[in-house]
């Protein structure tokens, strides 16, 4: 008797759960792979995003065109609510309730907008399309998924994890510089080809990120970057430039640039970009601030290496209160309360010890 009751209760519970599930699925969009856990986005939330109305033309596989007007929200705006950007997504899968799915590759994601449409020609979507229809203007109708219930993030650009900071002022001490004619001046520049060769990168990054001291940010293709120079002396130094690049593509007054897991820092420009702090008569830049901006990987221990090969290790806790500053013309570290041997003169790299 008790067994029968348990059986009935379990069945009822299952029906209730299923019913809730169906209602839930009807009123929400499931996003997987975006965050650590799956994300259920209520349609009401999509409707609250900035509304976009656009005339679109669907072209089917027979070449037939259908013109209509859709209203919805941009997928990029939805991603923004989770601190993500469509341009950093490498691939998504749009999944319909009837089992249809299509992969949207990076080439489409970087060039096109994706509209999560909830109105067509001003009317609610019909049964064939509700609750949402994905619209990718200028792409074929095969991408315009009706009954959209799930978006799977197949792959996304991971935040660059920098493992090594390299100070440009120290790099110039150990790497030969080349003469570079810049307006009427002959300045000194690092040939980037030599930098990247010395890094011995297993896999070349797609892009290199630059941060300038006036706040200007730029992503440059690795191909363009590796054909250029970092001018280390004279006006606007450090300055990324190349005889093969238009002047409009130069980056002046570089605070740092990141190449794969390496962050190259100009301490000179860091003094303009960050608010220098004074501690025990040392005026320097907070390592904690610098490492946070660069996205340096968390580690228990960091190894500091000087241009003469001297090495010392510092704990993460001490790094958080550390500084870098100029002693004469050389980069030097300073850690309040630590022994003097951690104040590395001619500091070249700070490396996370794995």
């Amino acid at each position, binding site marked *: 008797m008790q067994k029968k009751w348990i059986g009935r209760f379990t069945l009822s519970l299952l029906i209730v759960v299923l019913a809730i599930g169906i209602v839930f699925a009807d009123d929400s969009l499931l996003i997987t792979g975006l965050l650590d856990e799956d994300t259920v986005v209520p349609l009401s939330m999509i409707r609250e995003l900035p509304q976009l109305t656009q005339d679109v033309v669907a072209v089917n596989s027979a070449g*037939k065109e259908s013109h209509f007007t859709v209203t919805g929200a941009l997928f990029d705006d939805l991603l923004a609510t989770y601190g993500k950007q469509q341009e950093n997504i490498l691939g998504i899968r749009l999944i319909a309730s009837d*089992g249809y*799915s299509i*992969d949207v590759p990076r080439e489409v994601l970087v060039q096109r907008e994706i509209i999560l449409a909830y109105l067509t020609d001003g009317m609610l979507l019909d049964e064939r399309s509700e609750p949402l229809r994905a619209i990718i203007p200028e792409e074929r109708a095969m991408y315009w998924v009706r009954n959209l219930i799930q978006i799977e993030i197949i792959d996304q650009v991971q935040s660059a994890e920098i493992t090594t900071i390299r100070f440009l002022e120290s790099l110039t001490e150990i790497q030969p510089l080349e003469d570079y004619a810049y307006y009427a001046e002959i300045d000194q520049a690092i040939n980037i080809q030599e930098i990247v060769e010395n890094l011995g990168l297993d896999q070349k990054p797609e892009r290199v990120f630059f941060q300038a001291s006036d706040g200007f940010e730029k992503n440059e293709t690795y191909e363009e970057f590796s054909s250029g120079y970092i001018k280390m002396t004279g*006006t*606007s130094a450090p300055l990324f430039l190349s*005889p*093969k690049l238009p002047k409009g593509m130069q980056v002046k007054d570089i605070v740092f640039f990141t190449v794969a897991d390496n962050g190259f820092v100009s301490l000179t420009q860091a003094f303009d970009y960050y608010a220098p702090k004074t501690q025990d008569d040392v005026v320097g830049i907070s390592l904690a601030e610098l490492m946070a901006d660069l996205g340096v990987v968390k580690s228990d221990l960091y190894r500091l290496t000087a241009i003469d090969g001297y090495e010392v290790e510092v704990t993460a806790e001490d790094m958080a209160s550390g500084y870098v500053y100029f002693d004469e013309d050389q980069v030097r570290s300073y850690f309040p309360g630590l022994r003097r041997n951690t104040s590395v003169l001619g500091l070249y790299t700070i490396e996370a010890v794995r």
Partner: protein
Amino acid sequence: MRTVTGGEESKVDRVGVSVIVLCLLLILGATVAPKAAGAYIPTLQIVGDIENALDIRGVEGLDLQTITYGDRTLHAVSIDELLKIAKPRSRSDVIYSAPDLAARVDASLLANSYLAFTPENGWEVLNFDHPTSSNIKRLEQIIAVAHELEWDDRITIISPIENIAYFSIGQLHASSQYVHWEYNGSATFTHDTVGYTSSVYTKSPAVTLSDLAGEADLGRVLVVGGSGEMAVYKGGMFLLRPNHVDFVAEGRRGMVKNVKGIILNSPVSSNSDAFHDALHFLGAGRSVLLVILDGFGYHQYAYASDNGYLPFMSSLGEAQRVLSVYQPVTNAGLASILTGVGPEQNGVMSRNQRSLTSQDLFEVATEMGKMSAYIVGDRQIINVSMEPVYNLDLNQSGSTDDEILATTLLYAKKDVDLVVAHFKDIDRSGHTFGDLSLQTMLTIAETDRYLEELITSWDGMVIVAVDHGMHSTLDGGGHGLLRYEDMFVPYFILEGGKR
């Protein structure tokens, strides 16, 4: 031999109505369902050097006439009428193209040529006046190939020193092509945990860069689009659309729509360098005089220099040869000089735009704490962030350049960090008399004297930039085309002061 039903008196009305109907059905790309249920009618395209590309997908809505050809009676449409809708860009030939056969005829002699659809032959041409070998069956395309085209309707290949070649869209459609398979995507249906995937491709006729420009060392190659965009070529294909060409870069990493041409051995420098150079010198604490000369191609500079019309400027060394923008007109060239970026970023790509969508030089100079002045004639061409100093033709010399000179000399004595002065006379003379005419050379010589006065009076750096060039026309000169005379201009950076 032949019978065409329909009286002469009704022909005009019929043509008028048919044009409207065909415009609606064909230009708008409407599909005309075949009369016989279930019958498949393949699409017939009219492509090439035409204003309106047509896709004919059925017979309904066509202005059909009953014709008798030999022992056959057919419903057919006049090819001449179809071409009137397609609007060939100039006098043309048409090529009737089937999968394995083609015939070329003069498009002006098609009064008795008809197009019919029959189940046994598909789309079929019936020429009453031409040899029967021109009666192509299973027709896929009618390609219009122009005899002559306006420059802007061509795809032009240029270098900094010559106009190398040009192609019409019709020529490209009529030439050997690749079929480019462009991956569109893969869709999947999942049934019972099994995924059934299909990948879809768009197949487009295409040509390569070497088909257009040959195999020689091409240097830095730019692909120029109709909206002024310029992409550095690093591989890709030129896709033949019905009446234009699109360029798709390798890996689908970008597209230049409506390609106007290709620039070989293009320099990296452009007239937009003026913006960056001016800011560099201002940042270095120098005052800057930016002189903008209107309509002065590099070939004019070289000719004037070689023939003694530029004694002062020639004494200062050779000018740099830099790229202007497409379209090479004053609005777009000026916008490039004053913003440091091209039309796709500053929003000014032709004579139709005046408002900038990016920061101009005066705005940035102001942010740097610098004082600026913008000295123009009696009107300003594009809207900038500051009020210009206007100059009227007070002495009624027919030019405002002498007034602009006087005003600029006045500002040279003031405490102003940046002065931009726009001189127009070379452009005016080039339009009226021709780019290399004696009158234009004399105007260039006069401008040379102005430059001497300005440069020797200016305590700071002087940049001389040009918005666009000028080419010869039958009645003088013109510009605005993708040709080397319009696209390449001189550029100088000089130290001001007494020589």
